[in-house]
């Protein structure tokens, strides 16, 4: 473990790029993620940037209960994100389908059956602070010693 790796670890956990994808929610969780951008929570003070571009993202926030329209779109999207990467399920929908998982529904939860999910933030919807906490708790774990672990 060299000094270089330590510097990388320190820097990387303060520069996290986030993309979010809505795979069929009610919009409530989207808006709570958007609220994280507000000056009150000020997500950028932790070095988290939300710009919704999978190709430069580190963390993918997945919202919603997986509708049929995403059947051939979500996995390619996940594959476009460069390593190291991680997906967080926000809200009850990606975990269980929440109250949309009833007979006659069109959704196919959980999202974890389609792409690997590393953390889950339950709630309908979770508060912005909870979302922020999840991202901040996961970020150091994802990036720590990435080269040592993988290469």
């Amino acid at each position: 473990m060299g000094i270089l790796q330590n510097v990388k670890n320190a820097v990387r956990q303060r520069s996290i790029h986030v993309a979010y994808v809505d795979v069929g929610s009610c919009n409530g969780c989207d808006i709570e993620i958007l609220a994280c951008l507000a000056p009150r929570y000020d997500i950028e003070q932790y070095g988290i940037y939300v710009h919704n571009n999978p190709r430069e993202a580190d963390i993918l926030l997945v919202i919603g209960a997986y509708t049929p329209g995403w059947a051939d779109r979500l996995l390619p999207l996940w594959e476009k994100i460069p390593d190291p990467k991680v997906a967080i399920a926000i809200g009850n929908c990606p975990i269980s389908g929440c109250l949309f998982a009833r007979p006659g529904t069109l959704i196919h939860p959980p999202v974890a059956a389609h792409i690997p999910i590393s953390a889950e933030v339950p709630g309908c919807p979770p508060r912005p602070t909870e979302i922020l906490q999840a991202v901040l708790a996961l970020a150091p774990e994802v990036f720590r010693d990435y080269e040592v672990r993988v290469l």
Partner: protein
Amino acid sequence: MELLYEKDLRGMKYNVLTSIRHDRVVREIASICGISPQVIRRALIAKLDMIQLENLPARYEASRNAAGGADPLVHAVCGDLLTQAVPLLATTDIDQVRGMVRDAISSGTPEPDAAIAARPYLARLIQERGN
């Protein structure tokens, strides 16, 4: 042809049309034009995009509530309905049908009968557009 970014939307469009409100409007349009609902549904799926399908009931009601200012002959062959409220046919198609009805009237057929006689032709036009 294998398409990279386009996919078959017919299933999802059918899902839209099976909601109660949409189903009722499709059946009403079908009975007005004297065509089976299946044919109308097929034409709608082929011709309109998804947001127009979702908006079908609102557009239909808006055209019902609008004061008629249209040509009575066009109205008799549901021209205003089929070109504006539910854009299934082009105005040139409707002009053609109107011409047929006008010819029939000038050759002595009473107007309601002439409009009804044009129905099979209208149905064929819609069916063609659905393919």
